[in-house]
């Protein structure tokens, strides 16, 4: 039962870097204990909030990608809830969306190959044209 989740949380803006690192590492250490793995951690930096949250207008966004079951999320959310500097968090399950995107990508790649094969002169023109929108 391995699922991939994305936890985004907002920390109060007046937090120092060391404190933030400490907070993140404690969260990370809680993941293996609950039977999951941390895929990536991304400090997205300080950003203005779209609305006031607990009388803060700015916040430091952190994104945590975690793999594991519901127990991991349960534990992480509990910790986020009791951690005072965390003003907001959101958990999103992303594995099914990733699967869907991978499928679409596979279909597009297959089509590209088919269209590239039959006509040799068209081959040069077609792939770059098809690739540009995908990367843009």
């Amino acid at each position: 039962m391995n699922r991939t989740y994305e936890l985004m949380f907002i920390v109060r803006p007046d937090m120092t870097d060391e404190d933030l690192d400490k907070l993140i590492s404690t969260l990370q250490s809680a993941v293996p204990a609950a039977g999951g793995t941390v895929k990536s951690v991304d400090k997205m930096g300080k950003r203005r909030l779209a609305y006031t949250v607990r009388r803060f207008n700015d916040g430091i966004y952190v994104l945590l990608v975690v793999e594991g079951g519901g127990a991991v999320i349960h534990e992480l959310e509990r910790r986020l809830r009791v951690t005072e500097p965390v003003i907001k968090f959101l958990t999103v399950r992303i594995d099914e969306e990733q699967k869907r995107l991978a499928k679409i990508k596979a279909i597009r790649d297959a089509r590209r190959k088919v269209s590239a094969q039959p006509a040799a002169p068209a081959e040069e023109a077609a792939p770059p044209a098809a690739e540009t929108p995908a990367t843009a």
Partner: protein
Amino acid sequence: MADETKVAAPAAERPAGASGEERRPGGDRPASDRPDRPAGDRPRYGGGRGPGGPPREAGGRKFFRRKKVCKFCVEKIEDINYKDYRLLGQFVAESGKIVPRRLTGVCAPHQHRLAAAIKQARNIALLPFAGRAS
């Protein structure tokens, strides 16, 4: 007489209207017709026109209507993600509302994902629930 002026005006303004429409799928679509919104708000769209009658006086009714296309289909954006608030912001009105499909031309499957993503983004304070991000 009245008829003639009516016909002539849209025809003359058509190029301007067309070029204005050209930008719609792009980034500044909401910005272009948003400023009049709080004052006039709804009635402008609803009044007298059939469904799919967006604010385009210059375009003329049956003479010319630029076919709106789904931005996500055209640019092959499949990943509509709540983190991409710049992209989502193009489909949110000044008031914070999700802009309806009939105004933006987004296709149904993509509007569905778009709406879900906007709601997620609101929950994490990337987009406002109401009003402008101050």
